[in-house]
């Protein structure tokens, strides 16, 4: 449930979350050209981490949990447990679209998208299960 005490911050939340998604797309394009670039991996990890934190803060638990899945995936790459491969970029782009859709719903009617199924599905596709 969205936090009612924070409605005045909704515009700032939507604006900054969309900026993070725009930066994610830009960084992902660059990472596909240089998949070993650890600086880009860290930046993508950091952006998903920020999106997760913002969503939890605003009370959008589902969207926060979905962002956490992507944060966990890039944390594993950052910490050297797996390597990034550009073949995965379609899944990452799809995840960004899911977050965009949830933000659009939040903007329109104040309620986030139900992402329970997507969280499980993306965890499987990213090898996190």
């Amino acid at each position: 449930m969205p936090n009612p005490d924070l409605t005045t911050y909704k515009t700032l939340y939507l604006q900054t979350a969309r900026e993070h998604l725009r930066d994610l797309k830009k960084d992902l394009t660059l990472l596909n050209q240089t998949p070993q670039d650890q600086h880009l991996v860290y930046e993508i990890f950091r952006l998903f981490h920020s999106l997760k934190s913002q969503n939890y803060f605003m009370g959008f638990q589902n969207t926060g949990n979905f962002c956490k899945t992507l944060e966990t995936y890039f944390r594993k790459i950052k910490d050297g447990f797996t390597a990034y491969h550009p073949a995965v970029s379609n899944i990452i782009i799809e995840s960004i679209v899911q977050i965009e859709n949830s933000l659009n719903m939040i903007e329109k009617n104040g309620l986030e998208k139900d992402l329970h199924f997507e969280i499980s599905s993306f965890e499987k596709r990213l090898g996190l299960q």
Partner: protein
Amino acid sequence: MKLILVEDDVFFRKFYVEKLKEKGFEIEEADDGEQGLEKIRSFKPDLVLLDIIMPKKDGFEVLKDMQADSSLKDIPVLVFSTLGQETDVAKAKKLGATDYVNKSLFDFNQLLEKINTLTKK
């Protein structure tokens, strides 16, 4: 009371700076660890609110640099963490952080209590 908030996310920075100013704190802000360290040196705050995951220099590096500087090592540091960062918090404490708050929980009173406790001389 002088505070500095080192936090890369403009959303959290704006929110917490506004709320803490309303409570009468003098507050500086920095959007990455490198700038944060510079401002900690020049502003000499009574307490540092420190995010961990940041560009240029992360919170761990800021803590290491503070511990290595005799003029900064005694300034209390409250880590601004979020859900799922338990390991990061433990590491930050080993590196000299005093305590932590979960910035995603919107428990402003808890933050004020911790600030007051940590700045009591």
